[in-house]
């Protein structure tokens, strides 16, 4: 079953088009990676899928077209974006950031408390920092908080924009483990990464976006083995080895 399918999908700012006629599909429970160089339109693609940027074309999510819905309505239906810039509430404590993550869900009984405990169990560092203001966190903790805040919404489709951005390898490793682990709980994941190798290692399916167009797609292993991809995105390693 398709979780999300975008057809004839395009994004433009004024007269400049940044994504053109893309066709993108995410099956339920899969991790789909979109890789591509800087400026290819990856961030614009995610912004448009969640509704922050206006797009044309259709976005069918869980069988219904959500292209006309607001960001908030999409969030209520279980779409969730962890943006590249994290967009945390810097002047609020960590715990308030997390609690607000559940804003879109009906506030019933202990559900939120359970989820909060689950997030703390996943990221024990956040529990230690629960009373600290979000803007005092380090880069890795910020990414954990952004991810934790998204999980509080119990997303069905989680979109991650460059989760490895600016993080030390050890933390990248942790974050990618969490992502792989989330799939096991049934969350579908759309992963946009510059770190092509890491992304393709955990993904089921991959798209390559260049200059606003999807130039290649296929099962992740095939994409990773494609000579062109090796040359362009894994190039440094390929040449060095």
């Amino acid at each position, binding site marked *: 079953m398709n979780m999300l399918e975008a057809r004839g999908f395009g994004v433009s700012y004024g007269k400049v088009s940044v994504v053109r006629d893309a066709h993108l599909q995410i099956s339920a429970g899969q991790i789909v990676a979109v890789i591509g160089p800087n400026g290819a339109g990856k961030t614009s693609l995610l912004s448009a899928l969640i509704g922050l940027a206006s797009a044309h074309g259709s976005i069918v999510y869980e069988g219904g077209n959500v292209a006309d819905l607001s960001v908030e309505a999409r969030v209520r239906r279980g779409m969730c974006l962890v943006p590249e810039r994290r967009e945390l509430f810097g002047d609020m404590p960590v715990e308030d950031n997390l609690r607000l993550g559940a804003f879109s869900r009906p506030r019933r009984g202990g559900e939120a408390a359970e989820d909060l405990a689950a997030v703390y169990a996943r990221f024990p560092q956040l529990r230690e920092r629960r009373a600290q203001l979000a803007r005092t966190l380090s880069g890795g903790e910020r990414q954990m908080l952004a991810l934790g805040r998204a999980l509080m919404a119990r997303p069905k489709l989680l979109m991650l924009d460059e989760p490895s951005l600016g993080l030390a390898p050890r933390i990248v490793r942790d974050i*990618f483990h969490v992502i792989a682990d989330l799939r096991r709980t049934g969350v579908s994941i759309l992963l946009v990464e510059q770190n092509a190798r*890491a992304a393709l*290692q955990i993904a089921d399916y991959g798209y390559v976006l260049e200059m606003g167009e999807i130039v290649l797609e296929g099962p992740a292993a095939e994409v990773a083995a494609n000579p062109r991809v090796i040359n362009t995105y894994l190039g440094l390693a390929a040449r060095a080895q």
Partner: protein
Amino acid sequence: MMRRALVLAALALLAAAPLVLPQFQVTLLNYIGLASIVTLGLVLLTGIGGLISFGQAAFVGVGAYATAVLTTKVGMSPWLTLPAGLAVTLVVSLFLGFITLRLSGHYLPLGTIAWGIAIYFVFGNLDFLGKYSGLAGIPPLTVLGWRLGDERAFYYLIWAITLLALLVTRNLLDSRNGRAIRALRNRGMMAENFGVDTARLKIIIFVYAALLAAVSGWLYAHLLRFVSPQPFGINDSIDYQFMAVIGGATELWGAVIGAALLTLLKAWLRDLLPRLMEQSGNFEIIVFGLLVIVMLHRTRDGLVPYFARLIPTPAQRLPKKVPPLPPRTQPKRDESLLQLKGVSKSFGALAAVKSLSFDMRSGEILGLIGPNGAGKSTVFNLMTGVLAADAGEICFRGKRVDNLPGRDIARCGLARTYQHVHLVPSMSVLDNAAIGAHLRGREGVLSASLRLDRAEEARLRQEAACRLDWVGLGAHLFEAAGTLPLGSQRMVEIARALCADPLLLLLDEPAAGLRYLEKQTLAKLLFSLRERGVSILLVEHDMEFVMGLVDRIVVMNFGEKLAEGSPREIQSSPEVIEAYLGSVE
């Protein structure tokens, strides 16, 4: 030609109007002229510069009261009171500009509201200004012995000044500083990086708008020969601002359109509404308010575009061949050019750059690479004064630059491009590129207003055209920059940086969004620049592009220097591979 004919026809109509129209309509036209002068200042200030003032009526009041007091109490000639009124306005507006314009945008309107209200109550409470009943008996103006005693005679003076103001403002915008003014609104940081003192320029346009208002006040006092505080209150300031919004800022004569529309509407509504309501009062403000709300919901450009469509745009031509601008002397090859010593920068707890040091020699192409988020763009921002370093030193040719504002660093010979394109989208490609040559011109605001800057301006434009031709955009000089595809916009940025004739060119991901052939062209261009002695520091993600182009590479990760060396050394460095690929296993 068509355009010239239309302008002549409009002038003829304007000249004939008082000869055929009844008195009442001449009076209205006079008020339209007076309001146009004030609104013109606001079109420049608000529409183009992106600054809002709610104190214009108070400046009109200063001009009016200055002449009223000095002519009636001191017996001065009206032609001497004009400079006196302008001098007072100059002092007040300079002061207000100085204290508000360095703060974020909303302090100017708030500051001017407060100033406007304060001065209104001063007008109304000072004995020698006649309190709320005002000052009467202001003498009429005489021009060359001709007494401008009636409305019709005064009409010509008002409109002559209005047209003059339009002309001078147009000249100002069509100049080196004019381009910088048009960049103020959203591209102030970019303008600073090319040597523009944006704070000074903001103060200049604020003072200019205030002076226009004072001129209008001076005319008003001699037209009515009576002043009282009423027309200089906050509501009148709001009306002027609305005229500018409704007229729009895409063309300067939007000021006349806005002034005419609101003046006529006000005259009509003041007559109609109180009769409908069966009570007196300024009910027209409801209509004005609704008009502005509905208008802004539909367009930010005002009414002018609807009129502008009827008028053909003049064909743009390149300037005739003029002597090129003198180039800078490039330093000798292999001198020490740039040094970073222990530079650090944090945002909150996030350390973006940690004790970074590297050197660059003249004539080099140096690549700065590293994963996204490694701090490369922050380094560029530190080097160009966009951000201030927390610690460390940056020296350019032995001179410390990290504590200088961006515009002074530009003076040293650094020019840059941006990762996210920073062009003025509504301005032509040529003008955008010419901003880069800002520091290679000298002419100021005054000489531009009087059209004394033409020789230099032609050379600046020629330089821009030449650089654009170089990057392959010679056929698009007069198109609006915002309509070009993203790749071409990046090339405009490079042409703009080249216009500065830099010693060191900083390129932030120049190849992003370029197609293969375009990348080849860019590489060729950069090589030829190096041949001429220009040094280049570039941040880039396309490894193939970087490796084939640069002499040396600095690799950054987590804000720190990870490795430094020739492309070959870097490609075989195990640490670099580990950092770049950050394998999950």
